[in-house]
């Protein structure tokens, strides 16, 4: 089952999150056919592949949104169970979907605390849902999260998300994922809809995540972004691994060939 990649050898850092032999079927479609994947802390691992290669499916399996039919999860080398999004977030795995899922009618601090709003102490006779919100604590947390990612263009955490730029929204979605005590942050096409300056802003945020010792999974089609920001690149094709490359030792052409044609006959892939 092991398809130890040929390109990265002993140099690979110890994996923080690793999966081995992941299979996923949707009815008759065999979307993932024994995929191995790993990411270390303080590393940006790019996940690339042509449309239908299984990137999104793999990401959803990692996030617990899809249940793998077969395969094993390891966190810091120890076996782990991920059967639901809650399992994943308890393990510190957070995902930033392409559509961001922000509430535009709420302000930045409300979005950053959404679903886990702090409440004031001392109202324990009320059910948690009806206790008073500590909105100032919420703003303090939001400011910290924004400062940590060094999003300088954001004027106020009390600004409504509906009035922000695409890059700022992406940064806020990332800040939300990071704020939840996460160690693994997965980004799905974070720059797909952005202009040049906005893309730069998001890439800076991704680099900050690496500096803060997060394990970052970066899904993208954009080779320039990938080569700017990633440390390693995992290539998927037809639901299997092609190879994992160290970014500094490869080039975009090699990656594109691997994505579209695989490694031809030189390497067998685990099935």
């Amino acid at each position, binding site marked *: 089952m092991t398809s130890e990649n040929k390109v990265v050898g002993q140099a690979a850092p110890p994996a923080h999150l690793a999966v081995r032999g992941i299979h996923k079927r949707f009815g008759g479609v065999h979307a993932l056919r024994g995929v191995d994947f790993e990411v270390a802390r303080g590393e940006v691992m790019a996940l690339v592949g042509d449309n239908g290669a299984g990137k999104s499916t793999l990401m959803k399996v990692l996030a617990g949104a899809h249940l793998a039919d077969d395969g094993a999860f390891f966190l810091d080398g120890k076996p782990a169970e991920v059967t639901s999004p809650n399992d994943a977030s308890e393990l510190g795995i957070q995902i930033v979907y392409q559509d961001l*899922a922000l509430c*535009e009618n709420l302000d930045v601090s*409300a979005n950053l605390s959404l679903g*886990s709003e702090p409440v004031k102490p001392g109202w324990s006779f009320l059910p948690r849902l009806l206790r008073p*919100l500590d909105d100032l604590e919420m703003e*303090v947390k939001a*400011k910290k999260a924004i400062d940590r990612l060094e999003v300088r263009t954001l004027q106020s955490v009390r600004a409504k998300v*509906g009035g922000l730029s695409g890059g700022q929204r992406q940064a806020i979605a990332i800040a939300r994922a990071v704020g939840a005590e996460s160690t693994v942050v997965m980004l799905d096409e974070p720059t797909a809809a952005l202009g040049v300056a906005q893309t730069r802003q998001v890439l800076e945020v991704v680099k900050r995540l690496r500096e803060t010792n997060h394990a970052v999974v970066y899904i993208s089609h954009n080779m320039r972004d990938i080569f700017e920001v990633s440390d390693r690149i995992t290539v998927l094709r037809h639901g299997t691994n092609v190879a994992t490359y160290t970014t500094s030792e490869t080039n975009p052409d090699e990656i594109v060939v691997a994505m579209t044609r695989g490694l031809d006959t030189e390497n067998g892939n685990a099935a």
Partner: protein
Amino acid sequence: MQPDAKLTFLDRFSALRETQFGTFVPVLLALAAIWGYFGLVLPFIDLISGQADSFRAIFLSPRNIYNLFMQSAVIATLAVGITIVLLLGDIDLSAAATAGVCAALLGVLVLSGVPGWPACIIVIFVGIIMGAAQGLLVAYVGIPSFVVTLAGLLGYQGLMQKILPTGNLNVGDPFVRGIARVLIPDLWGIVLGLAVVGLFAYANLRKQARRKALGLELDSALALWGQVIAFTVIVVAVVLTLNAYRSLPLLLVLLVAITALLGWITTSTPYGRSLFAVGGNAESARRVGMKVKRIRVSAFAIVGLMAAIGGIFGASRYGSVSYTAFAGGSLLLEAIGAAVIGGTSLFGGRGSVWNAILGALVIGSLGNGLDLTGASAADKLMVSGAILLLAVAIDALSRPSNGSGR
């Protein structure tokens, strides 16, 4: 030149509406315009044209303001409830019919000898169940709320007719009548008003002090004090005006208390935050682990609760229950209109229960003012329609313009 200027005006307008107090500005302006027209302009025209021999501001007399508040109270109660489902982006067309069923049930229970307060509790319970039942259909079966509550409207209208075959029933129970009849003594009314003002000011100043302590950005002193002073002026003016005619009626105190509670829940609790989140982006709310379906059901239950309370208020004020006053009349459209005129978005995620009260006052003032000028029912309907259209147009124009809202 001109289109440019217009655009910036609109932009400024939407920016204004995004601020905390700014959502009240359009509806307050509308209210001021209506009161100014009926209270000052019309009497002045009468005076000039010689139809009246002196300047008589009947509309703004304490007696008429008192009646106006009482007339608007039932509409306001329903509008407050409807606001909750509007926040989710849903709608409830059955609120008035639910109120009718609850009022009819109250009348029948009281007639059969059940004392007033247990009857009210039973009726409130029934209202909650009627609302929650519709909520279950919307959330778990996935039928659009428009269709579910349209069916509810028809069904509950029929149910009300079943309960009240004659279409009319007098309610003489002293407890029920007392809600509208009991007046708070003048002095206590003033004390109550000042206490509310003091609490409001204290909460605002304390929050500002905490902001400073935590190093957060501060509200400008102008906004802070403007807010406190405006609130004080409104409360004191209302209490003094009502005292000048009779006194503060218990009904209004109850309405404001319930609205304050719901207002606090919607803006200051995790539950309220989830209402806004679901209305803004239901998928996002689901992903962060909010129980979207249960939130929907609970919102419809709150409408049922408010409809039942509206039914009790109505029965108390009219001293009778009739089909036309609730299910068969214009109450539903007036209540939805009030919520929307108040500035609550039909698209979900934006609005406030306080705005619903102001919206109800706009609708009530229109009806009252047109009545005073001797306008026909036909005129009233057409003017109300125009105002509603204007309110929805303002809502649509002040949404984020790039269409990314949905």
